[in-house]
């Protein structure tokens, strides 16, 4: 039982880390689209974000998983399950992160851009040296909230039968008629989130050296 749960844990952690690693940068790109001077790019990004935030992640996962077959008749292989989960999560979380980035970037005082311009920094330098580091500090609290939600959301992968923590717990519970796997799963998610909170707090402390 523990072995099976352990394997589920690893899969959950994989979903978690891969989603973060991919959706954080994608969200930044998407936030640029959302703030673009080009009206078409702005509109497309806005609709995308609105749809991703306005429909259930569970539904999005099913669309990503079954879509290739229903839309294009491509045969779905079982190895696609995990890939579909990552694609679904990344597409969804990027939308949330994009809005968080946008809030942070738009909250920056215009004076920072002007000072950088007068000093001769290029636009790219201004963003990555001056603006972005300050944005990171400001958006840490809402990002923490999303990351904590993500830990729990990984359990949604069960809808396309990826054997992450929750899927495994459910299978064992049914087979052995016992609550224990659920208790262990609960402890797993809880401890995982304690760790997340701990790490994010460390990060906030680290950025506490100014203002």
């Amino acid at each position: 039982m523990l072995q099976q749960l352990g394997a589920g844990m690893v899969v959950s952690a994989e979903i978690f880390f891969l989603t973060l690693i991919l959706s954080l940068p994608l969200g930044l790109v998407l936030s640029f689209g959302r703030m673009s001077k080009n009206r078409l790019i702005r509109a497309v990004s806005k609709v995308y974000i609105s749809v991703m935030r306005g429909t259930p992640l569970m539904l999005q996962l099913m669309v990503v998983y079954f879509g290739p077959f229903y839309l294009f008749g491509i045969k779905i292989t079982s190895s696609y399950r995990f890939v579909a989960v990552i694609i679904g999560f990344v597409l969804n979380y990027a939308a949330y992160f994009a809005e968080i980035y946008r809030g942070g970037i738009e909250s920056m005082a215009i004076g920072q851009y002007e000072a950088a311009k007068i000093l001769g920094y290029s636009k790219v330098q201004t963003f990555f040296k001056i603006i972005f580091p300050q944005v990171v500090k400001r958006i840490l609290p809402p990002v923490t909230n999303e990351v904590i939600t993500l830990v729990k959301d990984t359990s949604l992968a069960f809808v396309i039968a990826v054997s992450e923590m929750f899927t495994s717990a459910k299978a064992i519970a049914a087979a052995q008629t016992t609550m224990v796997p659920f208790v262990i799963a609960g402890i797993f998610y809880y401890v995982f989130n304690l760790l997340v909170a701990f790490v994010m707090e460390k990060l906030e402390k680290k950025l506490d050296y100014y203002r």
Partner: protein
Amino acid sequence: MNLLEIKNLKKSYGGLTVIEDISLSVAEGEVVSIIGPSGSGKSTLLRCATMLEKMNGGELTYLSEKAAWNGSDGKCVYAPSKDLKRIHGYYGLVFQNFNLFPHFSVLKNVMDAPVSVQGIPKAEAEKTARQLLARLGLADKADAYPCQLSGGQQQRVSIARALALNPKILFFDEPTSALDPELTVEVLKVIRSLAEQKMTMIIVTHEMQFAKELSDRIIFMEEGRIQAQGTPDELFSTENARVREFIGKLTN
């Protein structure tokens, strides 16, 4: 040679004309103060001169290099960006509210642009930055962060940051207006010492006594125009009623 030449500058926001028509030349080593009631367009003038704002018309020239001029269609044309980049290096601007980078230490605030913009080696930039900080009485603050400093210290850091790039002209937009009176003194002292070293400066200020002592020329602006200008003696003894009234209000 004139370091700066502005000819027939015009600037409006939407339908609101802020600068009617201003021409202004500044020679090397000259200290020019700009005074005038709030809303008269002083900041806008500096923002156009430093290219934070685009002019609607007129000519802008630094060191005989044209940065902007009137195109044939009546719109203002700016020089190609590689020329503008060089021209940008000729001047610096000190803001009323400092605009220091809060996540950089004092030292990094001062040395980062020389390194990342001008490509000066780190060690050399650091040496220059430390010398500048020492000159402005901030040697012991190199490792502090802006939020740990008083307003007067922050403004001195921002002056050091501007000086680190070795500009030919330094603009100041009300450098002491955000400061308590007792902190104003230390910033004015620094600007005074720059004047003694023949730094070319254009200073928007409400400090009449300071402007009088320091300036080679004072410009009085109102409603987007230069209404009067001259040496401090000329301006402080003018017959122009508006100027007298304005100066009178601010000196007592």
